[in-house]
């Protein structure tokens, strides 16, 4: 955190001054470790084993915050008797289909209300096409969504029922003992127990603990389950929805939160609405119902309004109730259209045109060679950036020019490099990592022909519409009917000539939403109507333009308001700074302790009491803690006074996830796809449901079999330097930053340096089945060899900021990674791999490819003999599948009824 988010880290230092204990778990000793009380080096890729060990410590010693757990989590909920856990199935959960490598989650569901085997419709409804669920990263809709579950599942609040979530969890993590943590993670029991004690002793009524992770956590084949493991722990200890608690994702780019809220992602629309898919969203009602999830609790029940408001914002006057608000205009997805699939399709010649908007995949994406070969096979490429980045110049200086794989005179790709406006040359909002939108004022005009993305896309849309204006083709209606009328401003001459800058404020107002007839901006998404009388582009952002005021532009000094700073910028939803903050009060609505008071029920306020406090309550303002839902209710009415997690299908924090995850209801330890170790816990080696593209140009280092020489014996990981930013497009071109960190380097421990003959400040190169890259050797005790499963493992660390362009150049660490993805969100495993390290510089020219291919062949990383993905025993696979078939038989009549 001190390295990659230094200014955010000031608050950790501040907390330390007030007595907080800081623990840093990281393979490498960093500037964060230097200021922490305890640094725990860990083997890369073993985090679930580590966190699972702490969960086990909490459960074995009954250190959970019981009042919180019983009332606010699903600990008491009874799980279906069909569910079988990884312990029984060699690392698989029940319901696994080895053909498609997906789970049917039917057996993971909560038991039904009468406990007689019938499932609630909301639980059964999306257990349909599991391959599609993975391919479309459908779990991402749950970012603000939560799982879908029935509103009233059976519960045992004594937590004694053998199938209640609490007991299921306890059994699941019983194997994660301190000894197992030591064996798998390379963490000593003393270090581990010190973390356990610190975390648990600092949680409860009087105290809270924050879990901070950086998004390298997401770059694993089990990335979502890493975060789930953190969530389980924080829920068990009562650290969610409370001040000083939470799980803080330190996202790495100025508006990466905004880029998912208002996505440019293939599978979601603004506000986490799903992109319609051809299989199940042929009509507006299908689409809405898949989000609305009848039968479940919570605010997704109003999805009809959110969806209609988006369609109305897109197609304006053309969108009417009679034509289902132009729902038919939406293109349909049919599977995986993620960035890695698309790059492979470029290599295969299926994609013709590509836009890169402030993005440098030639350096920043995994498997850089595949990225560059894909771009070299396009018809046209548009790059918009401040500098001539590697993704714009690959046709003349990519590493593949040197190897002869790209020949400039034979490369047909037409490239446009448009100069982009910088952050001070345009106005608009970034959403930072805590969901807060901050408006930026424009300081100066962009230089020369540099323009904003807003300008580029507005005018591109205008010009495409002009070209299609006379078309009578039905396919062009969505373009021609698009609401694309934004006021232009800026230089009067440009405006007069039709080339003005579109008003970002007008776009923000459309995102916020307004009444169609009057233009009155909406104050809350609860004002959205599903009849076309309101429109709004992103329901979760409604309120950012409340009262016609740009709330994101608020800059009331921190000296003039409370520490919560509600009048600085604006946070979604509805300016709430801590999500689910009803959990900061006890079931009766009183603060858990005076010390941790944040939001509470004031029975004297208003007509019959109101929620009050330091923040905007994340709860219906006048719904008392004593409210209990009427029989058979769903939606908002079903949220009880003790259901803080108002977006979850059952209103409870999920210790166990019955639905929505592709790879299991609870995190379980799997080895990384590339690992020098066998999974100590199960026969199933790595995530069985991961997304892989098995092709000759994407070889993965195999897990060594017994007796085979270890060709790739070391583990490597990458992260950022304070002085550089991601793929270097915003830092390697700057004099100051280039001077501060001028050269690519490879950190190794003194022990590894001795083993391989590496000389400090000399050259070395790192080899995987994809590439070999070179850098200067940095011999440092910041990296320590760990003892794992009884042997020593060396870990190698590299920054990933360099490419061939910029003021300082070097090889790109992302060239070392292959492409294998987390099945829930299709994010690549680019924080862990296996490698070899050798002294000296790498070969150049064609010899480089021969060298790498020699390694790949020796390791067995060739297509025909690649490691099998399903490695659980065949008996376990059969039983997992059978459990499913039994479950299906049992539930089939009910499902048919529902249809």
């Amino acid at each position, binding site marked *: 955190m001190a390295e990659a988010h230094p200014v955010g880290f000031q608050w950790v230092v501040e907390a330390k001054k007030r007595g907080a204990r800081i623990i840093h778990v990281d393979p490498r000793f960093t500037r964060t470790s230097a200021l922490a009380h305890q640094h725990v080096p860990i083997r890369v890729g073993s985090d679930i084993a580590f966190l699972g060990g702490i969960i086990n410590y909490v459960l074995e010693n009954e250190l959970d915050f019981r009042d919180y757990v019983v009332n606010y989590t699903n600990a008491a909920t009874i799980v279906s008797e069909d569910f079988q856990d990884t312990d029984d199935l060699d690392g698989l959960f029940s319901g696994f289909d080895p053909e498609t490598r997906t789970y049917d989650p039917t057996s993971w569901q909560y038991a039904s209300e009468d406990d007689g085997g019938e499932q609630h419709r909301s639980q059964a409804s999306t257990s349909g096409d599991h391959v599609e669920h993975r391919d479309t990263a459908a779990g991402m809709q749950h970012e603000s969504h939560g799982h879908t579950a029935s509103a009233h599942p059976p519960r045992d609040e004594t937590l004694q029922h053998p199938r209640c979530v609490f007991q299921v969890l306890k059994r699941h993590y019983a194997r994660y003992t301190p000894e197992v943590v030591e064996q798998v993670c390379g963490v000593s029991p003393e270090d581990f127990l010190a973390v356990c004690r610190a975390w648990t002793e600092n949680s409860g009524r009087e105290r809270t603990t924050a879990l901070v992770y950086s998004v390298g956590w997401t770059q694993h084949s089990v990335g979502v389950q890493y975060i789930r493991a953190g969530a389980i722990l924080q829920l068990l200890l009562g650290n969610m929805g409370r001040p000083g608690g939470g799980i803080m994702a330190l996202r790495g780019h100025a508006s990466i939160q905004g880029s998912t809220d208002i996505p440019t992602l293939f599978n979601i629309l603004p506000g986490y609405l799903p992109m319609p898919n051809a299989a199940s969203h*042929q009509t507006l009602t299908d689409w809405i119902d898949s989000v609305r999830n009848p039968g479940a609790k919570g605010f997704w029940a109003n999805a009809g309004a959110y969806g209609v408001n988006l369609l109305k914002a897109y197609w304006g006057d053309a969108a009417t109730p009679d034509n289902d608000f132009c729902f038919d*205009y939406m293109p349909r997805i049919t599977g995986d259209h993620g960035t890695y699939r698309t790059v492979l399709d470029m290599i295969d010649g299926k994609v013709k*045109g590509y836009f890169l908007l402030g993005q440098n995949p030639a350096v920043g994406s995994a498997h850089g060679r595949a990225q560059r070969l894909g771009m070299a096979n396009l018809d046209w490429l548009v790059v918009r950036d401040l*500098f001539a980045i590697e993704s714009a110049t690959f046709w003349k200086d990519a590493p593949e020019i040197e190897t002869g794989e790209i020949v400039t005179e034979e490369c047909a790709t037409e490239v*446009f490099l448009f100069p982009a406006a910088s952050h001070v040359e345009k106005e608009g909002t970034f959403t930072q990592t805590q969901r807060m939108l901050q408006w930026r*004022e424009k300081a100066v005009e962009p230089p020369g022909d540099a323009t904003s993305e807003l300008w580029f896309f507005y005018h591109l849309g205008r010009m495409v519409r002009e070209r299609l204006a006379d078309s009578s083709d039905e396919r062009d209606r969505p373009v021609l009917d698009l609401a694309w009328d934004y006021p232009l401003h800026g230089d009067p001459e440009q405006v007069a000539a039709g080339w003005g800058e579109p008003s970002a404020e007008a776009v923000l107002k459309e995102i916020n939403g307004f009444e169609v007839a009057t233009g009155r901006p909406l104050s809350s998404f609860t004002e959205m109507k599903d009849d076309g009388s309101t429109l709004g582009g992103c329901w979760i952002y409604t309120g950012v333009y409340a009262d016609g005021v740009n709330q994101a532009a608020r800059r009331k000094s*921190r000296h003039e308001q409370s520490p919560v700073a509600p009048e600085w910028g604006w946070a979604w939803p509805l300016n709430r700074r801590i999500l689910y903050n009803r959990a900061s009060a006890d079931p009766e609505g009183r603060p858990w302790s005076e010390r941790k008071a944040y939001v509470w029920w004031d029975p004297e306020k208003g007509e019959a009491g109101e929620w009050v406090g330091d923040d905007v309550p994340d709860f219906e303002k006048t719904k008392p803690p004593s409210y209990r839902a009427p029989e058979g209710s769903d939606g908002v009415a079903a949220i009880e006074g003790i259901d803080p997690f108002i977006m979850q299908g059952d209103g409870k924090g999920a210790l166990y996830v019955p639905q929505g995850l592709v790879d299991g209801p609870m995190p379980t330890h799997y080895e990384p796809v590339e690992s020098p170790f066998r999974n100590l816990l199960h026969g199933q080696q790595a995530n069985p449901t991961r997304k892989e593209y098995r092709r000759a140009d994407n070889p993965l280092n195999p897990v060594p079999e017994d007796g085979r020489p270890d060709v790739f014996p070391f583990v490597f990981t990458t992260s950022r330097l304070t002085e550089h930013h991601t793929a270097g497009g915003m830092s390697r071109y700057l004099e100051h930053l280039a001077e501060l960190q001028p050269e690519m380097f490879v950190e190794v421990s003194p022990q590894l340096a001795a083993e391989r003959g590496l000389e400090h400040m000399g050259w070395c190169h790192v080899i995987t089945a994809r590439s070999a890259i070179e850098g200067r050797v940095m011999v440092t005790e910041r990296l320590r060899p760990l003892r794992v499963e009884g042997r020593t493992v060396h870990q190698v660390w590299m920054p990933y900021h360099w490419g061939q362009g910029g003021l300082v150049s070097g090889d790109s660490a992302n060239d070392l990674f292959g492409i294998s993805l987390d099945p829930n969100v299709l994010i690549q495993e680019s924080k862990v791999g296996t490698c070899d390290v050798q002294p000296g510089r790498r070969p150049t020219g064609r010899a480089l490819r021969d060298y790498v291919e020699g390694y790949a062949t020796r390791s067995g990383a060739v297509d025909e003999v690649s490691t099998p993905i399903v490695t659980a025993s065949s008996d376990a696979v059969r039983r997992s599948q059978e459990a499913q078939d039994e479950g299906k038989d049992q539930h089939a009549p009910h499902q048919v009824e529902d249809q």
Partner: protein
Amino acid sequence: MTEQAARTKRSLLPWPVLRQLADGDILGRGRSVRSRKTDEVEPRTATADRVARSVCPYCAVGCGQNVFVKDDKVVQIEGDPDSPVNRGRLCPKGSASKNLVTSELRQTTVKYRRPYGTEWEELDLHTAMDMVADRVVRTRRDSWQDFDEHDRKVRRTMGIASLGGATLDNEENYLIKKLFTAMGAIQIENQARI
């Protein structure tokens, strides 16, 4: 000491270390190291024509920045002391953001590389926009798909893809997704996937 006397004293002791000794300014942080030039220097923040309130474009912490402008040029970027996020602080990258926006290496014209070309060529902005619009229309037409292989309605193009960075504004992302969706382009991705 009057201003006149100070000048006289300086001229008599031209070597700063002598002035330090004479003044007892052992650490060299006082009057002994001042010159007429340093006395006349004013901070760029004091002489700026205007200040724009902005946000750092690097990581996602969201530090407030004050952008100082003189003669329509950015002359300084500093942390915003009013911000509850950063309390006026910036990290090395944030502190270098003036360098980012004023760098001479920035592209200011459209560069064009024709198929099989070996060098960049210059292109007029509006011509370049026309060319891109033509290519979008053509590729969309040539790669249009009304139905998929299972005869399900998809009305889309698989010929056009996009990958956006996460330093795009919300308003920009909104228009990008809106336009591509209307055009039937679905392979629209972002750093957020990476």
